[in-house]
């Protein structure tokens, strides 16, 4: 690792002069860049923008649900609010959140490459994402859609009157941005690894992004064709779902959920990859069971394609198919359980620095386990018959997507912030933010489990008065959660100007990305690094190994 070591000791002025952030200030250098690090920054800004819009829609929903009656929004207004909340959060924030920002930034760095395999394709994928995002903004301004993010037929094809066509076209286009990103990652991980970087020496972040890219490339096209069939029916009248002609609305649900369940694994797998990095770095210890955790990511990607029927247990699907899907849904929970057990074992006898990223990581594990196991409950046929399409399901997927992916996103943001910007953030404020987010989150979504089990259906704008107490609790929690999410905005931006200058390896971690300077130069490494050891080669036994990093 000698060449890389020189990178780490370069003087701050030299680092500052060659940093990728300094490699051009013009708009052209940012909007026509092919540097994967700059494209990651472009993605970071755009997904934060859409996170804000989706968050505003969520705030509207939570405020309206404070009272049983239609006080803030009309029936139709509420339906459009939750539809937009769903569409924007799923396709324009959650799916690109970790892969397109941290995946773009870190995959070349972690495998010792100068850039992704197809840099121009990477920029094209951002422009496609932005074009689709603008179309969605037009949908928002034009009044939104009243179909929910699931676009079920025949509601969307015959009875919905919102801007369904533009929303479907926007999602269809955003799918191509995902396919191109997945393709880029797969080819990069196969063909651009540094000499010596065998598959057994890949960091687990790369394994999980490889699994996510498999889902990107194999699931998104089926969403594209499903939306095409929907458009064909709504616009040209040549659809295959029309029940009056003998078509089957369940066919749409089969094709839609064949994409949409792997899509929820698209959202959670990168977070699992981030967790493996955060836990090993905080515990300063080799991951427990490397191969189990690595293959668990691939297993989640593969089995994730076999379980979509658990969304359709009460939809009139055949009971035998439901039994098969129920069984496979239990099988897909096993790899996730393996990962959680291995992280816990990694902390055992570690040399733990309780930093903000670790707080986010532990928060992630608690919420992900809670979400995952309620998912197991939903996979039980008889229980799903009772709680399907109720707030129990809403709480379940928010525990995994918000409690899981968004917490991991913030953990990753704090952990790699020094590497991305070259500045350290304020540690105490970050810990307060982490605690606020975790408390606010639980206050928001745990009451929804109870609401769900008592029979409060999803997407209800007017509800029976006996549920009001739990809704008020949930809305209060949402307020605290919003505060928790806004805090990083301030102290991270503050750290850009006033933050201490970060060293090349502030956490004493062992990834290749920590061997180059912070922020890294335009071509990542002054000299091609050569890999000689596994990813997490922390000295095992030494009591206070921290000062020998």
């Amino acid at each position, binding site marked *: 690792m000698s060449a890389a070591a020189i990178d780490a000791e370069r003087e701050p002025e030299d680092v500052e002069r060659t940093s990728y952030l300094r490699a051009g200030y013009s708009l052209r250098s940012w909007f026509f860049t092919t540097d994967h690090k700059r494209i990651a920054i472009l993605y970071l800004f755009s997904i934060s923008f859409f996170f804000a819009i989706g968050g505003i829609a969520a705030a509207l929903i939570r405020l309206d649900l404070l009272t049983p009656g239609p006080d803030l929004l009309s029936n139709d207004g509420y339906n459009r609010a939750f539809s937009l909340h769903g569409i924007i959060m799923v396709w324009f924030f959650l799916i690109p959140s970790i892969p397109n920002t941290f995946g773009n930034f870190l995959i070349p760095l972690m495998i010792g490459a100068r850039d992704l395999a197809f840099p121009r394709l990477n920029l094209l994928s951002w422009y496609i994402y932005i074009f689709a995002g603008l179309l969605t903004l037009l949908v928002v301004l034009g009044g939104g859609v009243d179909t929910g993010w699931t676009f079920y037929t025949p509601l969307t094809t015959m009875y919905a009157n919102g801007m369904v066509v533009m929303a479907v076209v926007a999602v269809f286009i955003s799918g191509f941005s995902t396919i191109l990103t997945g393709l880029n990652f797969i080819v990069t991980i196969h063909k651009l690894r540094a000499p010596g970087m065998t598959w057994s020496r890949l960091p687990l972040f790369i394994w999980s992004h490889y699994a996510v890219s498999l889902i990107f490339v194999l699931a998104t096209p089926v969403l594209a*064709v499903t939306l*095409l069939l929907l458009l064909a029916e709504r616009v040209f009248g*040549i659809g*295959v779902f029309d029940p009056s002609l*003998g078509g089957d609305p369940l066919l749409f649900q089969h094709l839609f959920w064949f994409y949409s369940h792997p899509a929820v694994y698209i959202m959670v797998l990168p977070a699992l990859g981030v967790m493996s990095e955060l836990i090993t770095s905080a515990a300063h210890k080799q991951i427990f069971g490397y191969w189990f955790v690595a293959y668990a990511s691939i297993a989640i990607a593969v089995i994730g394609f076999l379980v979509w029927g658990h969304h359709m247990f009460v939809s009139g699907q055949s009971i035998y198919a439901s039994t098969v899907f129920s069984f496979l849904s239990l099988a897909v929970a096993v790899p996730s359980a393996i990962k959680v057990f291995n992280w816990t074992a990694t902390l055992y006898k570690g040399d733990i620095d309780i930093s903000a990223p670790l707080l986010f990581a532990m928060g992630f594990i608690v919420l992900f386990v809670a979400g995952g196991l309620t998912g197991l409950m939903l996979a039980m046929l008889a229980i799903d018959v009772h709680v399907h399409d109720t707030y129990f399901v809403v709480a379940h997927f928010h525990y995994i997507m918000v409690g899981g992916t968004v917490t991991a996103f913030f953990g990753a943001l704090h952990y790699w912030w020094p590497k991305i910007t070259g500045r350290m953030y304020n540690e105490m404020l970050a810990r307060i933010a982490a605690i606020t987010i975790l408390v606010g989150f639980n206050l928001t979504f745990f009451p929804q489990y109870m609401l769900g089990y008592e029979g409060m259906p999803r997407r209800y704008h007017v509800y029976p008065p006996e549920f009001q107490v739990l809704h008020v609790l949930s809305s209060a929690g949402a307020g605290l959660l919003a505060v928790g999410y806004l805090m990083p905005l301030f102290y991270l931006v503050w750290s850009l100007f006033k933050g201490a200058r970060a060293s090349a390896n502030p956490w004493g971690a062992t990834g290749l990305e920590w061997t180059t300077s912070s922020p890294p130069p335009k071509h990542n490494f002054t000299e091609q690094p050569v890999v000689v050891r596994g990813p997490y080669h922390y000295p095992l036994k030494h009591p206070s190994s921290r000062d020998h990093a």
Partner: protein
Amino acid sequence: MPEQRELHEPFHQRERQEEADRLGMLVFIGSEAMLFGGIFAAALALRLLHPHEFTSASAHMKLWHGTANTAVLLTSSLLAAIAVEAARGGRARWAGRALWGAAALGMLFLAIKAHEYWLEWREGVVPGPPNADFGSRFEQLFMNFYFVATGLHALHLTAGLVLLGITALNRRARHDRGAVLIGNVALYWHLVDLVWVFLYPTIYLAGAGR
């Protein structure tokens, strides 16, 4: 000295870069195959829901147009493969001719397809125009599926034609002994052929013998 494709940004060795380009194209082909996988899932569902009516609706299809189109596309696929072999063998002129041949057969496919659509328009089995009258309601659903599936395939075929044209005009691609660009375009063209190979029994052969 045969032209070398220029070495772009992150790659050090040209050979590794060619492998990457080909893998990238194959992964894209895989995603396009999944796109048509959705179409075949729809066909499977319709056939399992109404087996009897699916075959009787398919009996009305123009079997000879379909068969001719399959033969045309198989031959055009052959020409694309010949183009790749010629480029590898260094015979740039033959590569160009084979590419133009493949494109021409692609146009022929579209011509046959257009003629078939026109016949169906006249018979009034095209959903939409006023003179449309269908034997049964499921017949209209089958025609819907037929137009969506063959329309999507024709769209991809047109994109393939454009790619074939660009590669045929691209001098450097024809002289590239590694046949990277020609190889990738041929891969895409073979995918379009593969999809039709499976669409043919789904739409035409289902009701052929009745």
